[in-house]
């Protein structure tokens, strides 16, 4: 078996990206994700890759766009305000249907906000951020091991669907160290006939572009893209269920909030409260079926978030508003304690949502 090593979450992302065959990183430093860039700066040149610190976030996302158009595996990483700056580029990449991996190690907002962990970019990641009709595959790691495994998965899904995969992490998971093992995994490769690799005079040249001035063409492109998104929604939702078999109250939480929530579920069980947890691993596609199934058997939901309540809207939608949904939240860089979550479970037990 591979060796267990201690690593920061941010470093795990970088190492996993290199193992997934990523040889191009473009970024601009920002707390709390700078270790990703630092790791890439050290390691990428040794494996024949390119690390480049751009002059800005906007420059770096457009470098990602350019590299992605050649079909190579490429990534960037940033934290909340930096992702806002990159959002124009995200829309262009999505509108060009090229694959890329983008990491957001979230911090408190809005504005320059703070540097402590947050999950308040949920809307930005799952509902847009940039302009136009588009989706990104959004993966939410809850451990250092998942920072690595979801990075590898993210590259694979990006190539499979020619989409952006976003790792939506937070400052805690980025900064913390946990044991991790890297298993030697086969990296799948995908045909990329659309890639700009040089025609060598042998074929018609490819064009990667997001500009369609004829509305009927642009409409057709949008419909075609959404057929692809429908396949992703059908095939790719990922989630974890914890103590859900006989649960009467379903906690929904992702990332670091799910770790706190798990402690609270255990504590609630000790008090005789039948609580369980659904942890979405993909935030888009949201695990709608799991939530819909839970809505049939539980009395209500508690959405635990490091935001003013963003995922809660998807919990309500996916559960068809059949059961009440309470919010247990902290914001601005604060994290709810297991006791705070437990208190909201006690309330839910009494029917107070």
């Amino acid at each position, binding site marked *: 078996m591979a060796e267990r090593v201690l690593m920061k979450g941010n470093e795990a992302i970088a190492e996993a990206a290199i193992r997934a065959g990523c040889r191009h990183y473009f970024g601009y430093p920002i707390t709390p994700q700078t270790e990703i860039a630092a790791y890439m700066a050290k390691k990428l040149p040794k494996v024949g890759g390119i690390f480049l610190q751009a002059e800005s976030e906007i420059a770096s996302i457009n470098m990602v766009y350019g590299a992605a158009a050649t079909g190579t595996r490429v990534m960037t990483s940033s934290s909340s305000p930096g992702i806002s700056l990159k959002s124009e580029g995200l829309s262009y990449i999505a509108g060009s249907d090229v694959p890329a991996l983008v990491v957001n190690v979230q911090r408190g907002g809005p504005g320059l906000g703070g540097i402590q962990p947050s999950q308040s970019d949920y809307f930005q990641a799952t509902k847009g951020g940039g302009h136009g009709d588009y989706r990104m595959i959004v993966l939410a790691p809850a451990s250092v091991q998942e920072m690595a495994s979801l990075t590898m998965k993210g590259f694979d899904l990006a190539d499979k669907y020619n989409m952006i995969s976003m790792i939506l992490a937070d400052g805690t998971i980025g900064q*913390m160290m946990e044991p991790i093992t890297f298993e030697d995994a086969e990296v799948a490769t995908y045909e990329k006939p659309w890639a700009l690799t040089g025609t060598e005079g042998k074929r018609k040249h490819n064009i990667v572009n997001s500009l369609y001035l004829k509305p009927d063409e642009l409409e057709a492109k949008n419909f075609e893209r959404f057929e692809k998104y429908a396949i992703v929604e059908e095939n790719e939702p990922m989630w974890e269920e914890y103590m859900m078999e006989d649960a009467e109250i379903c906690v929904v939480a992702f990332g670091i909030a799910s770790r706190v929530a798990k402690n609270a579920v255990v504590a609630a069980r000790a008090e005789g409260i039948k609580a369980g947890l659904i942890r979405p691993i993909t935030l888009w596609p949201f695990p709608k079926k799991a939530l819909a199934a839970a809505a049939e058997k539980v009395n209500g939901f508690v959405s635990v978030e490091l935001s003013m309540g963003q995922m809660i809207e998807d919990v309500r939608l996916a559960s068809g508003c059949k059961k009440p949904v309470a919010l247990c939240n902290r914001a601005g860089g604060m994290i709810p304690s297991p006791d705070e979550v437990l208190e909201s479970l006690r309330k839910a037990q009494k029917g107070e949502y």
Partner: protein
Amino acid sequence: MKTTQILIAGFGGQGVLFAGKFLAYKGLMEDLQVSWLPSYGPEMRGGTANCSVVLSETPVGSPIISNPDVLIAMNLPSLQKYVDAVVPGGQIYLDSALIDVKVERTDVEVFYIPATQMAKDEGIATLANMILIGSVLQNNPELSFEGTDTVVSKLVPPKKAALVELNMKALNMGKEYK
């Protein structure tokens, strides 16, 4: 062992994060589940720093510690901030060379160790952190002293190999302090 939550707090520059790393690697070597979470921010030498280490036989839930089993306080503000959070029956290790107050709680075990003074006297002024850790290992048989040299060798960069011996010396001073 049961899940042990250890909070180390002090000034930046006192080796708070390093001490935490040592415990985390020790846990890793003993095949435990481990998490290490630093406070991060616009931190600097002289500012406050703390780090949370959870050691467990089962997967670690939250890496954030609200109520530590073990508090290592390396300055007065840290002691004042966290003393009431320690679980009843828990342990508090404090650097009594820098903290001249006594803990009023009677439901916790308190170890007064003048680590900074001891380190200065031995010419290893920067290793007060490891003296405290030595005492933690000595008073928590589950953590044990076994294999500490391997852990230290792993943590000290090859360029600073001479520090391995000094770290071991500090750990032993903490171990033997009564």
